[in-house]
């Protein structure tokens, strides 16, 4: 009997567990550790470009939304387990992810760029970069792009975290780093990044950042339409301007 009660209690608990509700309630996950796209303020509230875009999209869709924080490692498994219905966390569309989730249209495009000390001659041509020491984060798109395209002429250094690459750039061990442009833009505006700047042209590698939903979920289409709508009505530009003085779409 005891077992039966326990089972019943568990079933009841499951029924009321924070599963996505039917209707217009949409639960959205973000990471909260990728400034300035998604991060926590001092009170632990989620803020950032992704969060504001999520709110604008919800307003556009007239949906009742809730935004939750979720660690990066478990963010796709959580989506598939119905803990939430969408991921708006600066996620790139990749072939691996397309096998398990669907994506909306992009809501911004990631580009790569070189960062080097202000005032140094740093041309981003292969000839000019010959023999230079360039850093990047391991297992990122920028690290791979650097190895694939400049690996034969520059000395590539790979770091476990972006912060360690910044440290070595500041210490002078690196002539420059290659990084996702927008987070680097944010770092350049901090005290640590003061003495550095972007060099040369951006590298557009067709890396699209989009909203992930469960396979076959119609939400993807709704989000895509909402993205188009906020692009058209100026809401997107308004949020964009708060973070970057250039259009990141």
């Amino acid at each position, binding site marked *: 009997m005891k077992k039966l009660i326990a089972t019943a209690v568990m079933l009841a608990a499951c029924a009321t567990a924070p599963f996505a509700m039917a209707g217009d309630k949409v639960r959205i996950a973000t990471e909260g550790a990728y400034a300035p796209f998604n991060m926590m303020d001092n009170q632990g509230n989620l803020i950032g470009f992704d969060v504001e875009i999520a709110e604008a999209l919800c307003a556009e869709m007239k949906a009742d939304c809730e935004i939750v924080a979720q660690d990066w490692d478990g963010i796709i498994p959580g989506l598939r387990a119905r803990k939430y219905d969408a991921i708006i966390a600066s996620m790139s569309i990749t072939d*691996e992810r397309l096998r398990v989730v669907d994506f909306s249209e992009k809501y911004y495009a990631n580009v790569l760029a070189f960062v080097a000390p202000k005032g140094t001659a740093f041309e981003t041509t292969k000839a000019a970069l010959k023999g230079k020491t360039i*850093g990047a984060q*391991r*297992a990122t798109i920028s*690290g*791979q792009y650097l*190895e694939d395209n400049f690996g034969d002429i520059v000395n590539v*250094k*790979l*770091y*476990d975290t972006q912060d*360690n690459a910044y*440290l*070595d750039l500041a*210490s*002078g*061990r690196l002539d420059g780093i290659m990084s996702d442009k927008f987070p680097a833009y944010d770092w350049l505006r901090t005290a640590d990044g003061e003495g550095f700047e972007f060099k040369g042209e951006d590298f557009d590698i067709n890396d699209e950042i989009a909203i992930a939903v469960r396979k076959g979920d119609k939400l993807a289409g709704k989000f895509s339409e909402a993205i188009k709508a906020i692009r058209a009505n100026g809401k997107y530009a308004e949020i964009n301007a708060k973070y970057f003085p250039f259009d990141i779409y």
Partner: protein
Amino acid sequence: MSWEWSVIWEYFPKLLDGAWLTLELVAISGILGLVIAVPMALMRASDNMAIKALPYAYIFFFRGTPLLVQIFLIYYGASQFDAVKASALWPILREPYWCAIIAFSLNTAAYGAEMIRGAIQAVPKGEIEAAMALGMSKFQTIKRIILRRAAGIVLPGYSNEVLLMLKSSALASTITLLDLTGMARTIIARTYTPLEMFFAAGMVYLAMAAVLILCFRLLERRLNKYQFAKRPI
């Protein structure tokens, strides 16, 4: 799950490049570490508080903090100071290779010193008294009797330390060095085959360890010949 042998073969030469760097780091730091450890151990074995204090503090610090922290302090920490960057040491401290060697040497020297100290104190008193009775000077006694006997005593324990260092050297990958582990991780970031690559790297570590174990075995036969002599009964 699929297992791809072909990835291992394709990248094996690169892993061997990494293994070579690992061996270099371990060999150089091992020798430097021993050079530091012996005088530290002799000082540590002294009865004089003033002589004992420095090695005591040194051993306490390097045994009491994680190797990863020591590497980071030397590599990222030192470079924060402009005085270091302006100094004559910067060409050395600039290179992750030398930072790794400094960290590994200092770390292994601390463990080594403590082991050698124990071995020195384990040299039978009678042998030292005999040396003195024969008229050997203090220096001669240390050189001919104490260190010679201590070497035989410390050897089995010391081989442990060298093997541990072989494996700890994987931490060099955290300061951008492409040692065996660093190389494996870099390959994995591209091929998404962590199981195969770590398996292959593990096998290479095992092979290197086997060679080291054999070397120590041979050395032990030489230094502790008396233990391998045929027993009379």
